[in-house]
């Protein structure tokens, strides 16, 4: 059935996201928070995350451009980013944030620049993957709950 196919696809997508390390257990926590009261909680949070993180990333980019030696500032930005990435379970992105922060601590500008590029890439990739995932989910309908629109 179309529906079950979609569901299977969605499940598969999710599994691969986990397997490839894009997501971690924290994402499960988010899913658990989703219920009848907040049926789209996960997607909402993820959307909010990408909006915030995009802003932070552009701040970092600006800082790297204009005042690259201000490592403490960079550190502050990435710390914030790290907080939210870990909250949604974006594991690879979080790791990249950690690496970036380490470079900041070492005041290694080149390392920072390189790491930042990776960070941006990870961010973009994750965004795209999650967007597809949620798109699929929307088609599938609420998976967890018993109530499902009859197809």
């Amino acid at each position: 059935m179309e529906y079950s196919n979609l569901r299977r696809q969605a499940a598969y997508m999710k599994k691969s996201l986990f397997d490839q390390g894009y997501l971690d257990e924290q994402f499960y926590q988010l899913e658990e928070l989703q219920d009848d009261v907040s049926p789209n909680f996960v997607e909402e949070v993820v959307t909010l995350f990408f909006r915030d993180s995009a802003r932070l990333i552009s701040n970092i980019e600006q800082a790297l451009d204009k005042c690259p030696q201000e490592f403490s500032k960079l550190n502050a930005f990435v710390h914030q980013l790290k907080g939210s990435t870990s909250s949604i379970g974006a594991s690879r992105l979080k790791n990249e944030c950690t690496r970036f922060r380490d470079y900041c601590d070492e005041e290694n500008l080149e390392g920072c620049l390189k790491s930042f590029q990776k960070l941006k890439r990870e961010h973009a990739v994750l965004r795209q993957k999650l967007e597809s995932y949620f798109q699929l989910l929307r088609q599938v309908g609420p998976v967890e709950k018993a109530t499902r629109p009859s197809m």
Partner: protein
Amino acid sequence: MEPSRAAASTASSGRPRNALRPLSDFPAGLRVLVVDDDLTCLKIIDRMLRKCLYDVTVCSGAAAALAMLREKKGEFDLVLSDVYMPDMDGFKLLEHIGLEMDLPVIMMSADDGKDAVMKGVTHGACDYLIKPLSMEALKNIWQHVVRKRRNELKELEHSGSAEENDRKKRAPEEGDNASSGNEGSWKNVKRRRDEEGEVVVQEEVEEREDPSTLKKPRVVWSVDLHRQFVAAVNQLGVDKAVPKKILELMHVHGLTRENVASHLQKYRLYMRRVSVPQHQGRLDTPYTGSSEATFRSVDSFDGFDLHSLAVSSQLSPQSLTTLHSAPRRVTNTSIGMSSVDQMGFFNSSAQISNASNIRPPLMQQINKQQMNFPSGPSTSMESRQLGQSQQLIQSYGNMGLQASEGASVLLNLPSLLRTSTSFPGGSINANLSNSSVMQMTHRGQQFSLSQQRNQIHASMPQLPQTRGLILNGIAGEHDSRLPTTIGQILSNEVSSHISGRSGSNMNVDTSLPGGYMNASSYGAVSHALYADFPNSCMNESTGSCYPLARSVGATSLTSTAMPPVGDVEALGNSTGLRGAKDFVPNYDLFSELHQSKSQDWKLQNINVSYPSDQHLGSKQSNIAFGSPSLAHQDSSATVKDGSSRNTRTVRKEIFSVRTEIGHEKGERIAQRNRTILVENSVRLKSEGMSDPRYQDVLFDDNIIQNELMNVVGKKQQEGVVQVDPELNFDGYSLDNIPS
């Protein structure tokens, strides 16, 4: 998706926020305030907490959170705050909250480094959660609320027994508080807390429930309230101020003429005491046991301070008791300062310091006398909650500073302690978790007040002189230091038994648990606490005492009259400086202290890191605090205002705090100390520490004082005041209520 409430006015279950929750479904309905600048995290945590059936309010900024907390005091049970925030450091917020509201605060951060966590601990956070948060972690945060209440009750019980006598003299409700506090079960605690929260937390005297049905609620002379009172008195003219007219001028709903009358009486006593310090003789008086009365008042003050101290620093109930009940002996010499003694001493010192605060020369004297404290406070400082005291102290410092904005100088101390106020100096944060917290952490570790406790041997007889000297020295130099030390000591020592009121040696060693420092020791302690000045004469730096108090939770503060850190100032301000009108809002602090009731008076958080770093005569203080904690790097610790005033006030405060301290939580103790200091100052200050410098410096102190006062005041409300009617001038330093 249920919207996150930015400012919830109703519980998730639909009940009004301030309504008592049915105990049966606890922890459901626990009122949590979440502060985090990261919206994603905020949303997630909000959802998680709601899943736990908590009543959640979210806030994305620290300043907004603080405003909300202030506005809706008593409407929250717990605060969850992120560490890294753009507008205010999470630790600072922690301090503020601890000082002002005395709520349990849990820190969160993605940073799981040991240092970060340690910082949280030393700043007085109840817990430190690592992000990303999980449901499991959040499910059990209610335990902190329960624990805190239980501790408060315990303090209450402990101090209650000692103060029973005092209490009996007071309004019956005091006893009620104590008795209800003895129930112990968290339910009772909770209920009582809720009830009392209603009563006690109020800045104004507004009882939410019908007072007549419960025990007669005590009037909490918050900083604001006291300020209003003072304004009214001044408007009428001190001589012509009669309760009825004052009441009319104050326009405070719920305040009775009797409340005003008793407060006025205290205030008058305080003023008298404060105005005395100018004369050497006067100074000596307290020490040389010149008068029972003096001591007595001092005692009360001490008790009061102690309470505050205790509150802030979590003075152990025992200390409080000791402080409270210990006979006031003038003999300072190496008094094993029973807390009471210390308190007495502290009071004296405080008085002296207060006086000193007002005038440098005076201060000198006081300093001298107070110098002896160093040894004392140190010991007390050890009080358990060094860290806490420190924080407290710091907060105090902050508070005091903030208080200084106009607030009575005296009250500075408390405000300093409170730190919650945005300390100009550097934002000490109430809760002691502010900057001072940082320092506190530092100090907390070093703060081995316990050891120092015994060291503070104030030799009374000489105290007057030494104090003066000390004060001078300190005052001149590190004002800020002093307070801190004192604060520290106070907090720590508060519990440690203030041996001897014997003036000089405030052996702050007192059993004051925490920050219960005799006024004298307070000063001394605070100094001691502040590493800065080993000799920090806490006393002197009344102003500076704040930092002391703050930093060290100087329990020993009790002995030193110097309200450590800020508190001292506040005290000084409040007490002597009546003229100054700037009663440091210590009163508030003190009130808070009172409220904290269950603290064991440990000046735990005396966050010495009192920004205002004034080494009040820390230099001079002979207070051999030896304890490293004294080396409170935090300037905040430095008694802000070397004014001995503080010391003096602190003492009183300490004393009074002592009584209250039983309840206060450790953190509050620092705060309280401040208040105590403030109180002291209020009391002592008859002279009106209008020392502008002091004021400035004390700005933070004031804040602290205010805070302290609030705390103390509140505590007094609880029963500290009971200690000694005259000393308990809860609202002395209300002037400065900076908040």
